């Protein structure tokens, strides 16, 4: 009896030790990666990075100004298509389809769509737009990213609307406000900080996507403002520079990676702050 209980306590301590050890084993390298990225990026970042276009091979200097503008254009396109659809689908799930078969099916499909590899989105956008137009374009990249934004935004919008107390909706309906106005002026307005941060999260996620842009936006070494022409994008440029053999380009890739990560860190932190609040404030 004593022996067996001694063994049980030994096993208990062993497993506790293993769990702590594995956490340390995971956290330390991951923090090291993050630290290394910040260190390398910060030592490579300078003003020219934000103001210059890429320099020709062999010349020092240059920046990624055109890639950042291109990323901005593609993301603006993607958001203008993906955000309204995503929010509307989330409104349907939370306000109309809650508990119905169709609502369950939409929710499930959104979760599955979320797990489809980004490269498949790239191929789909290529097959749909680029093959028909016979040239790469900023627009096709925007479509690929918009499709990727929809499921994330739908699910966060739904979650955030579910945190709005029913009493507020009932108060509005009780005053004779029609349902559509209740949804817009009461539910959506109350949940708006959470929904906005959800959109930022989706935005940050697709901002770092490279695979869907490889054969849609394609990349460009120069300034480009037109939607039906190949355009540069920050993650694409990082990829091209990372696999190039030039040290100067490697430096720019690190700087670009830091800019991307900072953007993502800010949005993830904001989401965390809002999600942590539970029931959202608002409704001013």
């Amino acid at each position: 009896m004593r022996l067996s209980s001694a063994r049980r306590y030994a096993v208990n301590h062993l497993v506790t030790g293993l769990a702590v050890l594995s956490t340390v084993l995971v956290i330390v390298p991951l923090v090291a990666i993050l630290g290394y990225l910040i260190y390398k990026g910060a030592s490579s970042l300078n003003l020219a990075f934000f103001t210059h276009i890429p320099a020709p091979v062999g010349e020092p200097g240059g920046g990624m100004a055109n890639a950042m503008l291109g990323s901005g254009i593609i993301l603006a396109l993607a958001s203008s298509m993906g955000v309204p659809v995503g929010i509307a689908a989330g409104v349907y799930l939370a306000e109309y389809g809650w508990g119905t078969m169709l609502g369950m099916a939409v929710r499930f499909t959104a979760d599955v769509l979320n797990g489809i590899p980004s490269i498949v989105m790239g191929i789909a956008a290529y097959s749909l737009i680029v093959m028909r137009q016979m040239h790469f374009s900023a627009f096709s990249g925007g479509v690929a990213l918009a499709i990727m934004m929809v499921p994330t935004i739908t699910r966060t919008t739904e979650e955030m609307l579910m945190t709005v107390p029913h009493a507020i909706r009932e108060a509005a309906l009780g005053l004779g406000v029609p349902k559509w106005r209740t949804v817009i002026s009461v539910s959506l307005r109350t949940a708006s900080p959470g929904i906005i941060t959800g959109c930022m999260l989706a935005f940050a996620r697709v901002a770092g996507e490279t695979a869907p842009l490889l054969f849609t936006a394609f990349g460009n070494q120069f300034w480009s403002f037109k939607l039906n022409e190949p355009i540069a994008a920050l993650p694409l440029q990082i990829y091209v520079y990372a696999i190039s053999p030039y040290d100067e380009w490697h430096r720019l890739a690190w700087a670009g990676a830091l800019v991307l990560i900072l953007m993502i860190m800010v949005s993830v932190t904001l989401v965390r702050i809002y999600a942590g609040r539970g029931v959202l404030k608002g409704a001013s």
Partner: protein
Amino acid sequence: MSLEREPEPSSPLTAPTLPMDAAPIHAPAIINFVAAAEPVVAEGPPSPIRQYLRARGNGGLADGTFAAVMLVCALSIFAIVLFILTILIARSRLSLSQFGLGFFLRSAWNPVTGDFGALPFIYGTLATSLLALAMAVPLALGVAIFLSELCPERLRSPISFLTELLAAIPSVVYGLWAVFVLVPIMRDQLGPLLVKYLGWTGFFEGANFGVGLLTASIILAIMILPIISSITRDIMLAVPVSQREAVLALGATRWEMIRTGVLRNARIGIVGAVILGLGRALGETMAVTMVIGNHPDISKSLFAPANTLASVIAGEFSEATSSMYISALIEIGLALFLVTIVVNAIARALVWAVTRGAPARVH
């Protein structure tokens, strides 16, 4: 710790509780208001509020239109999935009719003669994903157990925040790190060590350039670790506290409590989380493309350069010249699409079965 669950914060129309001093006559009128959203009291002129609201368009037309627009947007999610499927099938018809299902069993990949088969890429995808899972799952389980059962309250929030942050780092950035840090380590330190101690297994033969199956698996493992551990933690936290208390009350040690009270209840969801990680690993593109070596070969050695379904598309699509070449690559994309849909559907169903009712998160 209270054994009772807190009341749902957002309970719907059920049982409106009235203040004690409210006249009971008012109660039916209030319920009617809520249910019908139309005034029942018809006496006298409408109040200014109601007049104002009526002037703002109180028609059933607006309500119906709004609901229809929301429904269309929700249905568009179905449409997107169906649409991707149709277009991928349509654009890969050339290769589908030329090679049939044998496409996935042939190991030829010769763009010059137009002879294509996807077997090397299927092998590469399976090998890297399964190796990555083998490395990541035990560690992720340990992290989840630590976070949900052992962790002091003060540490829990920063650590889970960190894992969320790491799950959000883009693939291309992990790839960048792998190219400049992991590949040299693999080539100069870890590789020779593996040859020295595990060379007899035959898995570590041939030249070691630092890039290859093993390097790709390691970066994949690093990328899926945060995802698996955070979902597993959520699932373990969804196990009711009463289960833990019951097992502890029987005199179990903490590990016995975790094993019988938590892991046994959460095992379906944990399997779901692992499959979700597998789905992520199967489709991971950029980081793998950057370190796998990109060579369509089936080799027993883990140092050998290889290619996965996703990385061959990323690497060769823009160079594909003949329409058969493009068609074959799109068919690979189609296969990837179908496989990840099945894998994700299974995983989601399993995770839902356990955490139903618990708040979902964005992953």
